[in-house]
């Protein structure tokens, strides 16, 4: 028995070294073995759990209560990037990624994600509005105005319904349902008014080159409180 085992092991080792002698064969074998036994579902669930971060920081940032922090933003990005891989049809992950990248100073990526969010939720005021803000801050006024016009055309009740129904937006931040409704309505009104004001300035003076629009644009571009909002 012992000799049999010894010979067997010797032959196996010898064969492995000779037939699959190249390291690539070993790597390939390990890869195939792992692929066969790894439970992808558990890996995905574990990764999502690991990267899950409370949304409080983003809501604070949206309410201008805190300053942008690269570490915290990257933490959020890691989670929402991963979430986006699973929640393929949900607009919230790209929407929040657009928000995070804006505060990271990467306007290009922010626009890219807001555009994705717009595709998935064309009935949300906030996606158009935020996209407009990022365009505006990047100096692309025409695109910003176009986005805000679309925002204005959206049914605001639909936007509120979208916010209240979303499972991705953490409501506990507001303490009570009343506070949530109050904050959501107030923010929406503020953003809508701002949107309307700029559009009126531009339309009344016939275009982007009007002096009043340019003056307002200059002020808004420097305004530290004029940023995308979550809701």
């Amino acid at each position, binding site marked *: 028995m012992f000799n049999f085992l*010894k010979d067997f*092991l010797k032959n196996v*080792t010898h064969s*492995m*070294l000779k037939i*699959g*002698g*190249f*390291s*690539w064969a*070993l*790597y390939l074998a*390990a890869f195939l073995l*792992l692929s066969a*036994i*790894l*439970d992808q579902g*558990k*890996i995905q669930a*574990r*990764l999502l*759990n*690991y*990267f899950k971060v409370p949304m409080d920081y983003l809501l604070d940032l949206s309410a201008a209560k805190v300053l942008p922090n*690269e*570490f915290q933003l*990257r933490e959020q990005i890691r989670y929402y990037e991963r979430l986006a891989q699973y929640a393929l049809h949900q607009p919230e992950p790209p929407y929040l990624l657009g928000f995070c990248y804006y505060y990271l100073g990467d306007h290009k990526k922010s626009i890219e994600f807001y555009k994705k969010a717009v595709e998935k939720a064309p009935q949300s005021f906030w996606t158009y509005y935020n996209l407009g803000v990022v365009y505006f801050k990047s100096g692309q006024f025409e695109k910003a105005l176009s986005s805000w016009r679309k925002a204005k055309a959206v049914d605001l009740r639909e936007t509120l319904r979208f916010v209240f129904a979303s499972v991705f937006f953490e409501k506990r931040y507001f303490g009570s349902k009343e506070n949530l409704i109050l904050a959501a309505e107030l923010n929406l009104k503020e953003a809508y008014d701002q949107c309307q004001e700029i559009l009126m300035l531009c339309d009344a003076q016939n275009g982007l080159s009007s002096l009043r629009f340019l003056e307002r644009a200059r002020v808004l571009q420097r305004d530290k409180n004029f940023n995308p909002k979550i809701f």
Partner: protein
Amino acid sequence: MTRHGIDYYHIIKHYMDNLSRGVFPMWDPFYSWGRLDNIDLRFIGEFNPFLWVYAALSHTSLSPMSSFAVYSTSYYFLGLFGFYLLAKKFLGRVDLAVISFTLLLFSSLTFTIFNNYCILLLFVPSVWFFYFLAVFMGSPEKKYLLGLTFSLMIVTTTYMPFYFVTISAAVFLVFVLLFFPEIKRQLPKVSAFLRKNKALSIFCIASILASLIPGLLWYWEGFKGDQILSWRHEGAGDAHTASMDIDTINTGSIIGPVTFKWLFSELAFPDQTLFYMSVFIFIILLLSMVNYLNRRLLALFISGFIVLLVMLTDATPAHRFLYDHIYFFKLFRNIFYLLYLCFPILILFCVEQLRIFLEHDPRSTRKKNILLGFITLVHLFLIVFLFRQGDIVMASYAAVVLSFVFFFAHFSGLFKGRKILPCFLLLVVVLIQPVEVFSHYIKNKSGVVAWFPVDRFYPKFSFIRPARENDSYFKGRSPKEMQDGSGFDGTKYTGLSYPYVLQKNIKYDVFENYARNKFIVYDTVEHVDTSDIDFKRMEEVFRAERNLAFIFDDVNDFSAAGLSKHPADQFEKIAQNSPQLTVLDFDLNKIKFRTNFSETKFLVYNDSFHNEWKCFMDNQKIDIHRANFAFKGIWIPAGEHIVYFHFGVAWRYWLSYFLLAFYALFFVFVIYLFIKQDQKQYV
């Protein structure tokens, strides 16, 4: 240092400050309303003689923090040196051993000094164990056997030696299978040595057995049920305090902290990176695809792979199988610690692959061109791959380019006759990326804990505990420099079960208000049937501060004789030294006070009840009652008396002091043997 990293400083400082005054910490009166101190000592491996380096340094002009920095760093370098020797033995070349050493030094293992020092406490003896084992198997000598024994003794007294057991089991299994003929050839030599040195062999076995005693005692105590680790034990189907259910353990997986993307990108934010190693190892792994395998490579790869399967926890069936069939897998949850212990395996594998790759000797120009083409392709692939990952530190590209230069020059024959230049260039390739990553780590340094108590930890008694909201006490660490804790610790309760049950059954604010006072004096008592405890009533009594203590034991000596005939409505709190009660002496394991009451009183000392506490009144042993469910209560007759509470049994103290001395002497003896034999060789 992160919050978790600085905890080790506090534990070591707490331990050594007390030990240097002759007090071996057995009890922690400041945490969880008083608890056994065994868990924290397990964290630091209390018998490790290297701890004396900290103690010695802290008695010089160095501050405790600087002493800790010097001690912890030098201990880490001791492990790195062990790894260098192991690599030299394994690879047979000094230059490659230096490369291995550098790769390990500039890996995320180094971060653990600042965020999880207990990994190094496990890593250092483990590395030395394997080194001594390798040399002992090659040439059995006394010094190697003693070194082997000593490193094993250190491992057994560290926090959770099961990590070491897991790695060792995988390595032994694979190496025995693959190197069976060689091991078989060596065994008679080893066996002859052990027979020739019977006394030494018995001594080594006895030493290892002795080193197991503290761990076994801790393990045995875990079954008694008088300790609770609430946050980890909850849901466990096993009686042992340290055991956990599989879901809790699964959270310690490497999945999450380690992702494929993070191996390469976002290295400018490596504050919590679990796995980081120079990009050069990935270059080697790619180049090595054309290498022929040898048994050493196979053994390293398979043993690493086995451990990887365990580290993936529930993503593969391996860990679940071990959890179900091997008991100790229920006791450790930070499975990712295994990853750090696997670093040496990975590095030795890569450097062995590097050695083989560099030994390729293409005879014809065609073969040489194919090899150079392959090298070019691999490096180009890596550049494109890195670029596509995003958030790549610039030094990664530089490392790949320099690596290309190195390999191209090597196989073009440009290094012929030169020894220093290739080594130097290789070191630059290895180091260039880690230097940038480490500089980011230093720059970022998130999670710094601001308070570092520099005073010695000499226990001071306080009559009143701090309020819960102001509390962040741990082993002397306190932002308010108060040497006491409220007892509450969020969700992570680590202490005795009685106070835990009490705080769970009584409203927090009521319990806090009651337990803030260490000494409470009563005139009336009530015996409680332990099978029928009315916590609601207790809560009411605590809230109203009624003059009524509850006694929870069967010792029936609480007659009302001598008690006040006209008791007050409320109990009396002793808030400071007074003519009635004066604290005379206090340290972690004892308290001595003088009492002088006009009538017989029942005194409750709100420090957890445990049956290893003893009490003496005027040098006569008296009974300690379990009072108010969780605390210590004694009867105090009228008049002046000296009361002395002492924790622990004598043999435990003697065992601890013996092991302390034994480890220290063993260490000195091993060092002496090495120096002596080196001198002999020199002569």
